């Protein structure tokens, strides 16, 4: 079955969405990501949507769910590269994507994840060791 590949970047996971996803593919991505965060103990997830020309309420909810599930697993999520037309449409649609952190570019997204992970690391007494 076709799946969206999840890449590992050190402590973080990176997902690049480049296809027009049908709903089942989106659900599969959600499940795969959750599983992978748990398996790898990743501290952060970056979802690159710079190639996505359409983000409707289903995809929006998917991103909110991924963010919530990651949080439960103590990982931060950042969505990067949203296209202007998509942002304008989402605002009109009434989707504010609360709980989902966004960044303009991959670089800024990585910086956000590193800062967040770093801040958490300092507060830990016996931290998990990522595999």
């Amino acid at each position, binding site marked *: 079955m076709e799946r969206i590949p999840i890449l590992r970047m050190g402590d973080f996971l990176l997902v690049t969405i480049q296809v027009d996803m049908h709903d089942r593919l989106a659900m599969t991505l959600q499940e795969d990501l959750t599983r992978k965060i748990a398996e790898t103990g990743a501290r952060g997830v970056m979802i690159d949507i710079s190639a996505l020309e359409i983000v*409707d309420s289903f995809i929006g909810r998917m991103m909110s769910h991924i963010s919530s599930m990651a949080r439960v697993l103590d990982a931060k999520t950042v969505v990067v590269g949203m296209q202007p037309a*998509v942002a304008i*449409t989402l605002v009109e*649609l*009434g*989707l504010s994507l609360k709980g989902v952190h966004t960044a303009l570019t991959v670089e800024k997204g990585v910086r956000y994840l590193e800062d967040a992970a770093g801040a958490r690391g300092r507060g830990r007494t016996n931290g998990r060791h990522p595999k």
Partner: protein
Amino acid sequence: MVVTRSELLPIRAESEVVGVRQQVRACCVELKFSLVDQTKMVTAASELARNTLIHGKGGTVDLQLVENGDRKGLRLVFEDKGPGIPDIDLALKDGYTTGNGMGLGLGGSKRLVHDFEISSQVGQGTRVAITRWI
């Protein structure tokens, strides 16, 4: 309003929802909509196609090129023979789009287009027509 071209597409499976998005996009490009207007129309179509599939248990969408005087536009008519919507006003309220599962997406879609008509009979089906003008 005059319909100058009409194309009926089935919405029976998720893959066909993707197909609807692509066809609507193609029509928008043909009509030379701006990028933002294209995005709005395709997104609205995606919401309504999904409604037709999931809530309406499958149906059709008619892609119509329309003209009103010297205005040109794209009209999409979604029809299904599903359970219908008992309270349309409630369904159009925004609570339904902010992710409580059902996500009828109707209220949001209405804001993305110029003209929005909806009719529904419980037990008989639903019909939603949206239009965007150049």
